[in-house]
C-alpha cells in the first residue's frame, strides 16, 4: 500500500467508491447494495480494459471506412458540418 499522500477517512473512501460504482454500466452492477471494494475495483479494471478494446476496435473500423471516403464524398461533408457546428 502506498505511503504517499494524506490519510483519508472511511467516509471519503465510501464516497469515491460509490462514485466509481455509479460510473460502471448497469450490466456490471450486480448488487444494488454496497459492494465490496475488491469486487468494485475488479469490475472497474475490467470495464476500463473493455473501453480500451473498444477504442482499438473503433479505430480499426474507422480506418477501414476511410478508404471509401474522398474529399468530395457525402461522408466528408458530414464531418465538415460537424466541425462547423
Amino acid at each position, binding site marked *: *500500500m*502506498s505511503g*504517499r*499522500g*494524506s490519510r*483519508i477517512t472511511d467516509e*471519503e*473512501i465510501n464516497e*469515491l*467508491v460509490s*462514485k*466509481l460504482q455509479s*460510473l460502471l454500466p448497469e450490466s456490471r452492477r450486480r448488487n444494488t447494495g454496497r459492494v465490496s*471494494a*475488491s469486487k468494485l*475495483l*475488479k469490475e*472497474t*479494471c475490467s*470495464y*476500463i*480494459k473493455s*473501453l*480500451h*478494446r*473498444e*477504442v*482499438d476496435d*473503433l*479505430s*480499426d*473500423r*474507422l*480506418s*477501414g*471506412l*476511410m*478508404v471509401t*471516403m474522398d*474529399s468530395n464524398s457525402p*461522408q*466528408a461533408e*458530414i*464531418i465538415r458540418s*460537424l*466541425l462547423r457546428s
Partner: protein
Amino acid sequence: MESKSSTTGNRDNPNRNLHGSKTMMASHFLRALFRIQQTSTSSSSAGRSRRIRRAAYASMAYSAGTRRAWSRALLRKLRSRARLRFPRRLSRAATPQRRDMDQAQVLRKLVPGGPSMDDCKLLEETADYIRFLTTQVRLMQTVMDSVSS
C-alpha cells in the same frame, strides 16, 4: 476558474466540466481524422488505425488538459512519441487476485500516471478517466454511424 486538481475534491458538477471538454474532444478528433485521411492514401490500414487510435487518446488528453494526473501522463507519452500501450493481460499466472491491494495495482497499470498515485488519488483519477474514455468511445461511435450511413 478551474480549481487545482483534486486534493480538496472537485465540487463542480462533473457533467458541466465534461460538456466543454466534449466539444474540444470532438473538434480535435475530427480535425485529426481529416488530416489522417488526407495524408495516408498510400499507407496501410493498420498504420491508419494506429494513427486514429493515437488521435483518440490525444483528443481525450487535450480536452482534459493539464488539470488531471492521467491527462498529464497521457500528454507526456504522446509528446515523447512513445508507444501507447495499455496492458490487456495483467497476470501470466492463472491465480485469481483476491486482495484489494492487488486490484489497486492492476488499476494503476490501466490508468495513465497510475503508478505514482496513492489509493485516494487513484480512485478520483479513475473516475475522471472513465468519464473521458466513455465520451471518446461514444464520439467515435457517432462518427462511425454518420460516416457509414
